[in-house]
């Protein structure tokens, strides 16, 4: 969620976790500094990944193209931020092999996985640090479950994806169906529209859409990544998503719905 509107946005969505006053105050200051130092167009508070010992606060800076120019940073105290590396295919492969269990909270912790290669009989070990795992997890969450309302972003042909400054918000009826909300990621299905709608997700039923606060706020929660909360106030341009969870994907979703 946008750093400009952080103060009231977090109150809109009840994730079960809140930021206490000290953290909010620190975020206000440090996010502004980040925007200046890295020359971001916009800085968002992306969320919090809970490790066993310490928690990671994650911020995301957006450049000219909202979809492609993204940089992620993490911090332990909402003040000192460290840039996460850009994610490569090799990193994704390593993390899926080696990283098991929960996040520990130590960025330099190493996950090692030993495997005996079937053909050659040589033992191969894959090692990956928690920092890499963090970067890969954030990217996966963004790709699989980040949500925006329909019409909030525009794209000219071959141009960057940008916020639509004329977005007036979805109507009340539109906000009650998953059709009105889109994944904020490269479209996976060949469609005419820019982004994929949530209603076409498989498995069906992996989203929970509710109207909270007397029907004034539409809250969408993902069941695939428990902890991803999206809110939108219909008839206003206010929307945002935040992830507050332990960074683990639900592995047996089909059995649970």
């Amino acid at each position, binding site marked *: 969620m946008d750093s400009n509107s952080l103060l009231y946005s977090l109150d809109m969505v009840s994730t079960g976790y809140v*930021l206490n006053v000290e953290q909010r105050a620190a975020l206000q200051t440090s996010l502004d500094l980040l925007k200046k130092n890295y020359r971001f167009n916009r800085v968002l508070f992306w969320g919090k990944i809970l490790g066993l010992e310490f928690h990671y606060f994650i911020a995301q800076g957006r450049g000219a193209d909202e979809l492609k120019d993204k940089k992620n940073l993490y911090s332990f105290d909402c003040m000192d931020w460290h840039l996460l590396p850009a994610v490569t295919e090799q990193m994704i492969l390593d993390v899926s092999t080696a990283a098991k269990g929960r996040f520990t909270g130590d960025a330099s912790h190493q996950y090692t996985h030993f495997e005996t290669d079937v053909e050659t009989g040589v033992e191969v070990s894959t090692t990956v640090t928690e920092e890499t795992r963090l970067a890969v997890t954030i990217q996966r969450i963004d790709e699989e479950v980040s949500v925006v309302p329909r019409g909030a972003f525009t794209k000219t042909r071959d141009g960057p994806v940008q916020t639509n400054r004329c977005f007036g918000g979805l109507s009340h009826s539109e906000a009650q169906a998953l059709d009105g909300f889109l994944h904020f990621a490269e479209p996976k299905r060949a469609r005419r529209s820019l982004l994929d709608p949530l209603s076409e997700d498989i498995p069906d039923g992996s989203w929970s859409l509710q109207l909270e606060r007397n029907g004034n706020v539409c809250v969408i929660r993902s069941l695939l990544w428990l902890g991803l909360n999206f809110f939108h106030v219909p008839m206003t341009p206010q929307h945002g998503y935040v992830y507050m969870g332990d960074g683990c994907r639900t592995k047996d979703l089909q059995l649970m719905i």
Partner: protein
Amino acid sequence: MPLGLSSRHVPSQAHVTFRWLNVGLTVVGVCQEETDRTGTMATPGGNQDADKSAASFKAFLMKNSTESNTNLYDHLTRVLMRVMDERPHNAVDVIEDLSRDVKRGLLQENQDNQSTLRDHQPTTTAGQLLAEQQRLLFSPGQETEEDEVEVETLLPNVAEIGFYLEQAGVGLGREETQRIFLALKQLLHSKPLKHCRLWGKILGVQSNYVVAEVQYREGEEEQLSTEDEEKEGETQDDEEEDEMGEVIDPLPRSTYKPPPVVPKEANGTGANKFVYFVCKEPGLPWIELPSVTPAQISAARQIRRFFTGRLDAPVVSYPPFPGNEANYLRAQIARISAGTQVSPNGFYVFEEEEGDEEDEEPRDSYVVNPDFEGFPASEMAEDPGFTWVHHVQHILKQGRCTWVNVAVKPEQESSEEEEEEKEEPDEPEPKREWGPPLLTSLSQDADMFDTPPWSARMSSTLTSQHAVAVLRSNFWPGAHAYACGKKFENIYIGWGLKFAGDGHTPSVPPPPQQECISGPEVSEALDPTLEEEQAQKAALEEQQASQEESEDMDGEEEEEEDDED
């Protein structure tokens, strides 16, 4: 000239715009034409020609489009009017969006104001109905002074708990917490309770549950338990009737004996020590959850499902869950309470008992310790194993907190001879289950899936002398406890699911049962082959023939007497 503008625009402004447009177009038209022809700016002598070309260009602009019944001139006017009204920042960058918006607005005005962006809300939405009910939460009420004093001593300190939870980084936001506590106050007024606490919130797919933990005053318990017993009696009668019908043609009897039903614990003890109420949103009526049975707890341990948000929804699973979502919710609440409700070591103590020290029954009651000093928050965060204890009884594998031997039947205890006859020699005596006693410290909790059961930390590192110690459960994500000095509280906000490591493995159906024992009436035999049958027939005929011969010889005298042939 027809403006084509909606009535809200001020005519004088429109006039001004037209003049600007006229002037602008003329200039544009003139410059363009002249530069096209000569490549230089026009000379004053060519004004009449310029006017004519401007007029024809304007007429061109005002020609209505064949598709949308509007023209470029009017559209440009409207767009410029909008820019004049709104004065957007970087107008040149957003002009395309504005233009599209204006077109869309006009189109919808023509379609009887059925704008999807600006739809009219129905007169009373669900949200407005809820708001009216929530308004009641804020009314001061008309109870007597006695009631008010009683209620207020039972109601926890709302603002303080909300503050500490916020420090700990857990909670629902200030307004919602406030509303929930006012709803708890309403609950206290409506029922005779001696203890009431916010237990937490369980999220569901369609709606959520706010859960309150209460204890009734002595002697005021509800009648739900008797209804359950009546239902159990009815099913037993049905079974007896079925048995009667089969006497005429007895089929082989099944030797399957279902495992004995473990009786549920009485209200006020063990897993049923507290009663739980749920509501969807604070302000809506509180609904009491039924008490939990051991079978439901055992089944809940084997399945993994999200809650839908409707208490009467069926729970479709394998192994089949005995009950609907209300029962499943109650079973999960029992499991979460048993696993994660903790208090600082020494806050509660056992009562002074005069009985046997070798009492086998585990103690299940405690009192608040008046001499509790409290630990500093840093110690509670660094050494949670010693400083925190469980104050809810552990649920045994059986599904109860106190063990019951289901194999022993009360009738057999009278005489030993009957026991020898009826007791099944095949079934071993069930082994007594033991669990950790009440007020066990957290150091006794075992790891699961390589994860420690608890994580503890301070709420703030910058102001640690006033910080709150926060304890988080890793097995039930969402269960938290905080302690600050002598105050502490537990809360659960989550989906109601236990941490399952690498994924939940559903249980496999049991192997098929043994076939029935073959006795004489149901024994199988191979059909005889053709040769065997013929051989048997031949042997039988020979036997008959030899018998007849011997009869003939004996019976010749008899035949002489019989002269019928």
